[in-house]
């Protein structure tokens, strides 16, 4: 909500320069605290590993032993099954990727434009428009009017825009970006360009944006994560299977698996595998497939995420 009480350049990181400290923790205390953190950190990652193990367990073993950490028989059947029914899965993957990419672009552009305008002292109505955005953080109409507007005024039901537009703008990000622009793009830099007769738009694209890449990247990262993990808008607006994103497919997985089972039984297109549908294993395999992109990219974006959290404050 606001800037922590540290200078903006300080980045929260656990790694600091090693300097001699006569009052370092005692060996025992250090060991205990390390263990505590290690246990908690492991518990945060463990469920994902557990899900991977379950997805690789033979369905008959699951039937007999439940979800165990060391299955008697390993099996790729769940993944083979998902491969056999890949069309819906790929479709959902494509929807999620499309929504994430499009949404992030729209969101960054709209937010950066708005935030830049209200960050400039030349803009006479900046106070009014700051309040116009800020007020939406204090008060909202609630879910029902939002839903009715989206379906009856904007006719978003069962369109891809239902997954993109509701999350495109966010007053909080606008205020963060505004502070960022105020800090990292001071007026003095822009003065000379103005004297040379460059238009405000040209200044924006050629000077301001290149200077603001860290801020823009932060908003883009938050936005990407938000879109990738969103299921709520799909829950409200999407029924068409062709538009169901990955997270939402996971919610409907029981129905989907059942539907696919019956369908393929009828058409007989997937022979062999159809005698036994690896139900729980297949579910967990889906979870793995949906989480993998995050888990793989996580070590790389984590640092930027942490930096981004302290990149700007809401207040001037």
């Amino acid at each position: 909500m606001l800037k922590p009480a540290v200078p903006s350049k300080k980045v929260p990181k656990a790694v600091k320069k090693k300097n001699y400290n006569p009052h370092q923790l005692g060996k025992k205390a250090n060991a205990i605290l390390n263990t505590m953190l290690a246990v908690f950190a492991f518990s945060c990652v463990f469920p994902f590993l557990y899900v991977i193990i379950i997805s690789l367990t033979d369905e008959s073993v699951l039937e007999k032993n439940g979800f165990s950490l060391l299955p008697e028989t390993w099996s790729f059947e769940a993944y083979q099954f998902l491969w056999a029914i890949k069309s819906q899965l790929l479709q959902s993957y494509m929807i999620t990727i499309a929504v994430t990419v499009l949404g992030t672009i729209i969101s960054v552009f709209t937010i950066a434009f708005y935030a830049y305008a209200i960050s400039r002292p030349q803009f006479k109505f900046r106070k009014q428009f700051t309040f116009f955005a800020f007020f939406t953080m204090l008060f909202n109409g609630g879910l029902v009017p939002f839903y009715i507007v989206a379906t009856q005024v904007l006719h978003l039901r069962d369109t891809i825009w239902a997954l993109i537009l509701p999350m495109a703008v966010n007053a909080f990000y606008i205020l963060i970006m505004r502070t960022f622009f105020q800090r990292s793009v001071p007026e003095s830099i822009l003065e000379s360009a103005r004297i040379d007769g460059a238009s405000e738009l040209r200044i924006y694209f050629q000077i301001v944006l290149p200077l603001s890449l860290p801020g823009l990247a932060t908003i883009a990262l938050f936005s990407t994560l938000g879109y990738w993990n969103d299921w709520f808008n799909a829950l409200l607006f999407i029924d068409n299977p062709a538009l169901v994103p990955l997270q939402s497919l996971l919610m409907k997985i029981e129905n989907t698996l059942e539907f696919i089972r019956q369908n393929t039984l009828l058409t007989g297109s997937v022979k062999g595998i159809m005698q036994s549908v690896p139900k729980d294993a297949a579910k967990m395999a889906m979870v793995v497939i949906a989480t993998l992109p995050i888990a793989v990219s996580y070590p790389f974006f984590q640092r930027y995420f942490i930096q981004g959290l302290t990149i700007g404050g809401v207040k001037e």
Partner: protein
Amino acid sequence: MARIKRFFQDVYKNKTWLLMVLPGVVWFLLFSYLPMFGTVIAFKNFQFHPDGFFASVINSEWVGFENFEFLFSTDDAFIITRNTILYNLVFIILGLILAVATAIILNEITNKKMAKVYQTGMLFPHFLSWVIVSYFVFTFLSVDRGMLNNIFQWFGMEKVSWYSEPEYWPFILVFMSMWKGIGYGSIVYLAAIVGIDRNYYEAAMIDGASKWQQIRHITIPMITPLIVILTILNIGKIFNSDFGLFYQVPLDSGSLYPVTNVIDTYVYRGLMTMGEVSMSTAAGLYQSVVGFILVILTNYIVTRINKDYALF
């Protein structure tokens, strides 16, 4: 007349800026302000009209506070308000203690490489959706296959059908909220702690202060303003809850509603499964208005304590 002319001149002079805010303004009008206007539904008996939203709103009959009276005459209003506030109170208090403690420990342990590793692990759940997390929870709580029941059986204890017995859920929900949120919550505090001037600690060490004394008399007082502000802001949001936690993690199980139904899930179900448009709007408006008052009030208190930390 002159003023109107001046205004248009100003608009013309600021046209580039106005163009820049235009997409955002359109979005706010459609997705924020129009729904605000739509809350009048709460005072009407909403009927869908074929000519769209405005026709529906205008043609619906006024009923005054009837929807609210009906809402508060049921037990639901009390239950959802109680659940929302109690859960949030626990989340705020426990979340604060655990996040601050984690940040302090991360800052104190001697092996900074390991601290980095721990932080990476703890932050991971923040990036997972509640849908994914609900599957994680399912692997532990599934009645016939879950890890907990497996362990119980191994010890010769009875299986628990987790998803139909409400008494465990307050603990499960609190646990999951902390599990997902502590890594994230500790970042801001860690940033503040790392930013504390080292000189304070040097001076304390020369005076022979122990580690524990340093934490108590330097670290915690230095981050107290931040703690106060974040906590007050959270209290301002006490009427809102994380929909995913209360909807996805209990798998929308009906027998758990007494302990998992919060205002947000109530409004959602009212709209999507009951189709009670006006009543749900009323419940949503109740949430928004109380939330608004709380934010204003808490911000006022923050202003009184320390102006720099006020939101506005």
